[in-house]
């Protein structure tokens, strides 16, 4: 092995053998000595897979954080079993995490794994079956199963290893448990830190940074726990240096400003606080709930409260009540809950109460795939209400967006007195990606509740003829007394069934969307301004699509992409962009019929959601490619699909 980067100033390696036993000194010298042999990589995708409860996710998150601290771009994706306590050593129970690390900013989870650590062969098989291993993938596997008392287990293990080797993977059998038992009594807890130590050694990470990260991860536990975990970390590191003949180094990216590392749901929670909202009502639903967990921990510090309501409807009604009486409030949910909230959302639109509804989408319909990603609620979010319910729909494209979307949503909701739906999905919810630490601006915060007297004779719905906007009266304002109602009403908020008044209200509510649309800029096209094909996407797929576009353009294809953050209303100018490309294709993670199916043709084909929307609005013949495999789209898969589409055209 060789390396391009040689550090001439380093001490010679012989120090190591001397009596100097200072751990850090030894570590440093040793890693220095190894460093010279390290293979320099652009990026790598690492997975750690275990039974649930063995701590693979903590291991991977720590690994990602250490790498991020070292200056790497990272993206982590949790691999979540469907069940809470799946049986051990089962394919369905595979639980773990993928960490993509690179010497540039990473925007998605990437394609297949370069290196995989498995705690048993069954969970590994799950990844093999899902085609998640790159050819020649390095496999590090716990070897204790080879000698398991259960002959079946031992056989299954041996067979798997044989097959992996036969398939060309680089298998390393590792006595994880045996090694761990030298330090702790129960290897089930702690093996993950041993693995973290190994990974730190393999990827030439700073052991001191790793120790700090472990101390941070176990900050809530006793110092004894921290100590024993650090011991295991050191052991793993030591063992890998002694026994593994591989060492990589992924040079840092040139990002030097402070970053924060959080997942999408924590990012939403931070955004909620930064928006100045003070009340978030929710009902437990996967995968939205963890945002409320985070908020519940800290919200009171800014005077906020998470209300766990008795049901989804109550949560939304509660938020509406809170918004009505003061600052805009939020409710967080996922598909089924979002469906239940529709009647209340209609009320908020009708009565013009600001409200932020966050829908962390999951696989549907019905209970569907509770823990898996899908972008299936777009049309529902735009058109889910009975009657005409013009509400704003936004979608967060990455983890950073989760933070800022909530701030913008609050601002729009209160400026336009309407409902803003923010769509994210399961793949953002638990994914981690560093983004520049926000510079908090108090202008993000909701303004104080207006309690000044309303001028005599002012009307609660004094709709502006051009924009449909009206001032909102808040309880406590003298002279503002009126009875808000979900019934058709006039400017005084009196129930009115007269045809003219009904139309006036409808028009005014609709005009507000038009007004907002007038403030939106045409989104920038990624790639070239014109060409053979424009990929249009929305939400969490942005990073994968743009990476696919990069690869295709590198191959000389004239492909670009356009990513929409506002889905309702849509910015002006999009139609023009569409026309500059020969073909337009949406790439989404929701269902669309395939023309490959025999009874599907252009007349009965059901398009993916964004394609429906764009076709209806821009009268452009838009094709779609979509996948509903419950996992984030891979750039490689997208690139292949686009290639095929381009090829089809060629035919």
């Amino acid at each position, binding site marked *: 092995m060789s390396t391009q980067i040689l550090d001439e100033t380093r001490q010679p390696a012989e120090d190591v053998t001397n009596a100097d036993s200072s751990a850090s000194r030894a570590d440093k010298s040793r890693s220095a000595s190894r460093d010279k042999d390290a293979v320099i990589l652009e990026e790598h995708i690492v997975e750690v897979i275990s039974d649930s409860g063995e701590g693979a996710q903590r291991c991977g998150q720590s690994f990602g954080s250490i790498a991020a*601290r070292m*200056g790497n771009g990272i993206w982590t994706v949790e691999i979540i079993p469907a069940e809470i306590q799946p049986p051990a050593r089962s394919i369905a129970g595979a639980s773990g995490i993928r960490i993509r690390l690179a010497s540039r900013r990473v925007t998605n989870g990437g394609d297949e794994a370069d290196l995989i650590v498995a705690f048993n062969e069954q969970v590994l098989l799950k990844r093999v079956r899902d085609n998640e291993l790159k050819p020649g993938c390095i496999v590090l596997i716990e070897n204790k199963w080879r000698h398991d008392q259960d002959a079946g287990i031992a056989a299954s293990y041996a067979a798997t290893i044989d097959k992996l080797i036969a398939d060309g993977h680089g298998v390393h059998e590792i006595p994880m448990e045996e090694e761990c038992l030298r330090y702790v009594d129960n290897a089930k807890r702690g093996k993950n830190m041993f693995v973290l130590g190994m990974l730190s050694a393999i990827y*030439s*990470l*700073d052991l001191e*940074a790793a120790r700090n990260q472990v101390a941070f991860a176990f900050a809530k536990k006793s110092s004894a726990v921290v100590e024993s975990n650090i011991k295991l970390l050191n052991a793993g590191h030591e063992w890998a240096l002694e026994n593994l003949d591989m060492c990589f*180094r*992924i040079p*840092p*990216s040139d*990002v*030097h400003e*402070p*970053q*924060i590392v959080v997942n999408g749901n924590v990012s939403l929670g*931070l955004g909620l*606080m930064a928006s*100045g909202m*003070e*009340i978030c*009502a929710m009902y437990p639903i996967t995968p939205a709930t963890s945002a409320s967990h985070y908020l519940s921990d*800290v919200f*009171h510090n*800014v*005077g906020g*409260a998470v*209300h766990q*309501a*008795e*049901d989804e*409807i*109550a949560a939304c*009604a*509660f938020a*509406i*009540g*809170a918004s*009505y*009486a*003061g*600052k805009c*409030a939020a409710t967080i949910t996922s598909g089924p809950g979002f469906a239940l909230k529709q009647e*209340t959302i209609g*009320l908020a639109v009708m*009565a013009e109460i600001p409200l932020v509804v966050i829908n962390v989408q999951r696989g549907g319909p019905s209970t569907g795939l509770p823990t898996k990603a899908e972008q299936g609620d777009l049309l529902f979010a735009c058109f889910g209400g009975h009657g005409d319910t013009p509400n704003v729909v936004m979608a967060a494209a990455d983890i950073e967006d989760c933070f800022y979307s909530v701030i913008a949503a609050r601002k729009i909701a209160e400026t336009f007195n309407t409902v803003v739906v923010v769509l994210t999905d399961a793949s953002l919810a638990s994914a981690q990606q*560093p983004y520049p*630490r926000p510079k*908090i601006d*108090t202008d993000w*915060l909701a303004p104080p509740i207006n309690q000044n007297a309303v001028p005599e004779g002012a009307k609660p719905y004094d709709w502006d003829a051009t924009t449909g906007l009206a001032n909102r009266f808040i*309880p406590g304002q*003298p002279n*503002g*007394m*009126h*009875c*808000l*109602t979900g019934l058709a009403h006039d400017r005084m908020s*009196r*129930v009115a069934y007269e045809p003219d008044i009904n139309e006036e209200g409808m028009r005014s509510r609709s005009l507000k969307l038009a007004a907002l649309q007038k403030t939106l800029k045409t989104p920038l096209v990624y790639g070239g301004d014109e060409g053979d094909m424009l990929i249009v996407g929305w939400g969490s797929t942005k990073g994968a699509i743009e990476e696919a576009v990069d690869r295709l353009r590198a191959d000389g294809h004239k492909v670009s992409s356009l990513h929409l953050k506002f889905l309702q209303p849509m910015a002006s100018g999009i139609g023009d962009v569409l026309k500059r490309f020969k073909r337009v294709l949406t790439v989404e993670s929701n269902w669309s019929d395939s023309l490959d199916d025999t009874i599907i043709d252009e007349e009965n084909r059901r398009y993916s959601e964004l394609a429906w929307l764009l076709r209806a609005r821009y009268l452009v013949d838009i094709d779609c490619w979509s996948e509903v495999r419950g996992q984030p789209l891979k750039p490689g898969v997208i690139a292949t699909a686009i290639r095929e589409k381009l090829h089809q055209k060629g035919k």
Partner: protein
Amino acid sequence: MTMDAAAPHCLLGMFDEDYTLDDYKGAEPRWCVGCGDSAILAAVQRLCRDEQLAPEKTVFVSGIGCSSRFPHYMHTYGFHGLHGRALPVAEGIKLQRPDLHVFVITGDGDCCSIGTAHWIHAIRYNMDMTVLVLDNGIYGLTKNQASPTSPLGLKSNTTPQGTVLEPINPISVTLGIRNASFVAQAVDWIPELVHDIVDAAFQHKGLSFVRVLQRCPEYLDGRYDAWVKDPGKMLLLNHENGIQTSPALASVYKNHEIHDPADRNRAREIASTSDPIPVGVLYRNQSIPCYENPRGPDRLYTPDVVKGVLEKELDRFTIQAVGGGGD
């Protein structure tokens, strides 16, 4: 040092004008002639006047149904929302604004059918608000369907052969919830007691649940005739911790019981009787904590404070890239 000049507060108080009943009258009521809702509206308006509630600080929240039109007829803030959802809306208002007086007006269908989950949980939350269930035992607005409190055997548009289900008893159910802190029953035909009971409910810190039995002249005419005509069929509950009947009323309604509202077991027994109809405060417990209290400890959340908290939170997640890679 003599200080006999008046304090500014005394003088300032003199500037305040009293609210009159007219200050609380909103739109002209459109209930049927003879409807019991009118008596309740008048009693509640009297209460607002007696308590001098600032109209802008008072919110009436309702669902859907005849009774839920109530907020339109008050000149306060009103929220005429969705069928069954008055309580969660009111809870949101109260959590956001503990300074507001929150009243919920709901009906038997609104509260005990479509809104049942919210009713049960509202009792659990015990937020400081006054909930009046205007229980006429029938769906009136949708024109004559059996409600969960309709008497057994009632013929209606949806039960032409008569209902076959036992009605729900809202106060028994409420008393069954551990967190219930105030449970009372009134009847629209004794408006003085509606006023007194709603007053006691208003004074109570916590959720006060008041069921008002109410006549519907349109679809359930004569339902309570026997009780309206014979004061002896009413049972007035008196206690120094509940309400005390005026002598004038006591001379008409002679059937009294001294009932200590602290006695939940007796309250449950009383609640389960329908003849005579008990009227008064059945249960009251001031020591049950209110849900809104946990919010907002004694700090002022100025933008700077919020910013400080956020910076601290961001610190938790911040990494400063070491950049060198491996050093």
